[in-house]
């Protein structure tokens, strides 16, 4: 870790300003990604702006069509919320499958979404549930939010305040964990909104993406069989020591199929 300045502002404005004005300012949420990167000296922010004391960033609100989760809400709280379990059980289950108990008690949805780790779970739900990411300055549709490897549409000093998830008719998430890290080697999130479907895949490419061919097939036939034969090209898939591109491509189909089977239940 290098030396850095630590700030703990009380308001969003102050947090945003401090982040922007610093030489290299970064906000700090649960610290589950930020702190290990700093300890390894991979991240070296000059200023760390902790969001912990800002009111209104935490909590879950259930509307008629949406579930709103404050950016500083911990994975554990989403996982164990009876409201989320009732409105979008797939989302509660996804949060319960992230990391281990200590990670779930610290890590936040805002941090996970802002980070856009290619193997993170939440991005699949954000994209699959057609969510809207709200920041201190605007609202960003999920389809526009994730732009690449650890890249999002967020601008400097822009802070996520909440994520609004649309409540689907049915949804499910299937994750195949990487054997060492437990992150998603491939994860597929499927959601049904009336006659329309969204199917988002995480873990397979630089960032989360939709399988539109599968979505169309599901619109015609909401069953696992509809996607069982749809494959993805290996070319731009991730490949590493845990999983070759060919195996990843295979897992995309299998996880999608299983998610659909679970959602169609």
């Amino acid at each position, binding site marked *: 870790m290098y030396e850095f300045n630590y700030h703990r502002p009380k308001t969003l404005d102050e947090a945003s300003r401090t982040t922007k004005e610093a030489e290299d300012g970064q906000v700090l949420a649960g610290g589950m990604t930020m702190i290990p990167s700093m300890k390894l000296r991979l991240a070296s922010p000059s200023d760390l702006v902790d969001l912990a004391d800002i009111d209104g960033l935490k909590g879950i609100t259930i509307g008629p069509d949406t579930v709103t989760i404050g950016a500083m809400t911990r994975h554990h709280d989403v996982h164990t919320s009876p409201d989320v379990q009732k409105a979008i059980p797939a989302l509660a289950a996804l949060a319960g499958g992230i990391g281990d108990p200590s990670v779930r008690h610290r890590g936040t949805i805002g941090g996970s979404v802002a980070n856009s780790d290619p193997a993170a779970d939440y991005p699949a739900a954000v994209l699959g549930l057609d969510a809207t990411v709200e920041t201190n300055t605007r609202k960003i549709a999920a389809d526009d939010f994730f732009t690449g490897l650890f890249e999002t549409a967020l601008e400097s000093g822009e802070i996520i305040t909440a994520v609004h998830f649309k409540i689907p008719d049915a949804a499910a998430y299937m994750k195949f964990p990487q*054997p*060492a*890290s437990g992150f998603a080697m491939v994860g597929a999130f499927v959601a049904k909104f009336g006659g329309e479907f969204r199917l988002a895949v995480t873990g397979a490419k630089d960032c989360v993406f939709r399988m539109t061919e599968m979505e169309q097939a599901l619109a015609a036939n909401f069953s696992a069989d509809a996607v069982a034969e749809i494959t993805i090209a290996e070319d731009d898939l991730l490949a590493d*020591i845990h999983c070759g591109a060919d195996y990843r491509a295979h897992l995309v189909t*299998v996880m999608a199929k299983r998610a659909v089977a679970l959602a169609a239940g």
Partner: protein
Amino acid sequence: MEAFTEKFGIGQPVRRKEDQRLLIGGGVYTDDINIEGQVHLAFLRAPYAHARINHIDTTAAAQAPGVLAVFTGRDLEKDGVGRVESNINLKQLDGTPIFKTQRLALPTDKVRFAGEPVAMVVAETAFQAADAVELIIFDADQLPAVVTARAAGAQGAAVLHDELPDNCALHWQNDTPDAYDAVAAKAHKIVSIALTNNRVVPVPMEPKCCIAEMNPGTGRLTIYAPFQGGRRVQGAVADLLFDGERDKVRHVSDNTGGGFGTRSKIYPEIIAVCYAAKSLGRTVKWLGDRSETFVSDLHGRDQVNSAQLAFDADGKILGYRLETLVNIGAWVTENGARLAIDGGGRIVGGAYDIPVLYYSCRNMMTNTVSTDTYRGAGRPEANYIVERLMEKAAHELGIDPQELRRRNFIKTFPYTTQMGMKVDCGDFAACMDMALANSDWAGFGPRAARSQAGGKLRGIGLASFLEGAGGRPEETMRVQIQEDGSVNIICGTFSHGQGHGTVYSQIVSEKMGVPFTAIDLIQGDTDTAPAGASGTYGSRSSQMGGVAIIRACDIIIEKGKVIASHLLQADTAEVTFEAGTFSARGGSVTMAEVAKAAHDTRRLPDGLQPGLDETYHYTRDGGRDDQSFPNGCHICEVEVDPETGAVEMLAYSAADDCGTVLNPLIVHGQVHGGVAQGIGQALCEHTVYDEETGQLLTGSFMDYGMPRAHHLSHMAAEFNPIPSTNNELGVKGAGEAGCCGAPPAFVNAVLDALSSLGVKHLDMPLTPNNIWRAIHQAKAEGETH
């Protein structure tokens, strides 16, 4: 008196007295220690796997804030710091001795693995030291790297040490292949297998660290560092830095967070920290982080094996041929190049009668951190080979795998192996029967059918194994009864998870009738460890230390009889001792009363020294060959998801013969831990170096797959104790058996599950990726046939 021996004596499931303190965070690990005036050290580690050093420019680092000193290998060289050399004395068949390296803690000529320490900074704070390390300019010419044993033996491979152009530090053979070739020529069938035993990182919970406290007044250095017994580190540091003066060096460790063999070795970092403390006359603290621990802790396993069994028409083994390549890494370390020979070699044929053996072992040097002892140290590898081979042979011979094993088990004892080891006792068939019953092997069919109905493939696998434990045949123990009757066991063995405080207390409690709670263990300090004490490794502490305790107790009891006779006004010969009480002529005195008298010179018989304090140096009669031979049979049941390749462990039954069980709770724990480590190696642990750059690709928990609780099933452990005849406690050693049995049992189970898909071969670890590929390949082959 009897009441507490019943509850706390030998064989009782006494709860560990260590646990409460450790569980509430009361342990004192090295980083918990901070010494007034300490300064901090950080290492610069080689960014390349192989490079010739041109120049290490430390000017800028030396001027950085807070920096006290920057050292490179040149400084060590200038100050005459000794070099570490292995004491392995093995020879090649033609008599040429093993090639040995002379390792300076910081190299001056070349770097030989990525992460090797090359320079160090001492500064007022740890952050300042780490910052200054980044200012060191490391100028070196990169050389091609070689990271696998096989590649190291290829034509044109990079050469690690100029004096060793073929990278083979030792090509050891037990004999020429002639005898084997002769039996093979008339064999009914020859079964062959080629296997890879994957490299693992030991990963103790406590990273590598060290505090070296220099007392400028006395010139004495105290080392605080996690270690499995301080005598070795004391000796090494004394030899390398203090002209062999052991009194000048003390080692202290209150708690060590995991040993597994990797914490029994002398690391260059420890020497370097001690050197810095000595040079500066200061207390120097170094805490390695997890990344440093990954790249620089000695690794385990890493063999390539090619093996053959020759059978007669009845399925009886005629001979065994084994050719092994061991990747010993960049330096010839303390045990690396003898693990497959002295370690695994002693039980190379496993539980089977091997009439003829040809064993060739090439120890290859590569640009990786060295491999050395890791729980089992050669025995898991040896058992894995023979158990995979027996399973394969059963299929090729058309004989039931259990029947084939029964036909070949060693049945008459003592049995002298082809490597000269005398296996004193065992009943391998009984262990197998026990495991078969406990696993409900007979009821597997319906369970497999249920799995199949759910789209899964179920498999069951078995492995019998033989272990050799307790190598170094001597140990010293001191037992001291204090005036108030409480007892200190003072030792140089070192409990870092084994529960010696509990087990040794049970032995003393039973032997002397002293309350269990009145017995304390004093360990982890070379100032108190008796002379001739060694340490804890190779499953030796109970069988060596335990026996030394018994013998020390015997001497105390004899002296107690003399004192008791004085108190009871009887002849010494009349005094009997039982359950803590000395009796004669109708009177009796307790051990506590005798202890009190022993400390009161007025009440001692003439000519007797005060105190009840005895030290016993125990040397095993038969020496090294008469060690103990734990053995067992483990059975594992798994389910494979054929679509994804994911394996789930469903059930595990261990039947172990570790001789007399001193404390079943603790031995169960040893079995569970060993099995978990074995499953870890078989399922997910895999150390990968980039074949081009030589960089460690699995240098963190994000990429190195540790086994987790949810990877494991319930493990049922039962015992079939056949007391060892080689020590009076009858114990055989229990620490390493689990990781001998688990890998072959697990892999055999997965092979069984996949047999219907035509998968015939797998190499560890059985990650989903590997299983999926094997299924895929079998399918492709099935289609072309």
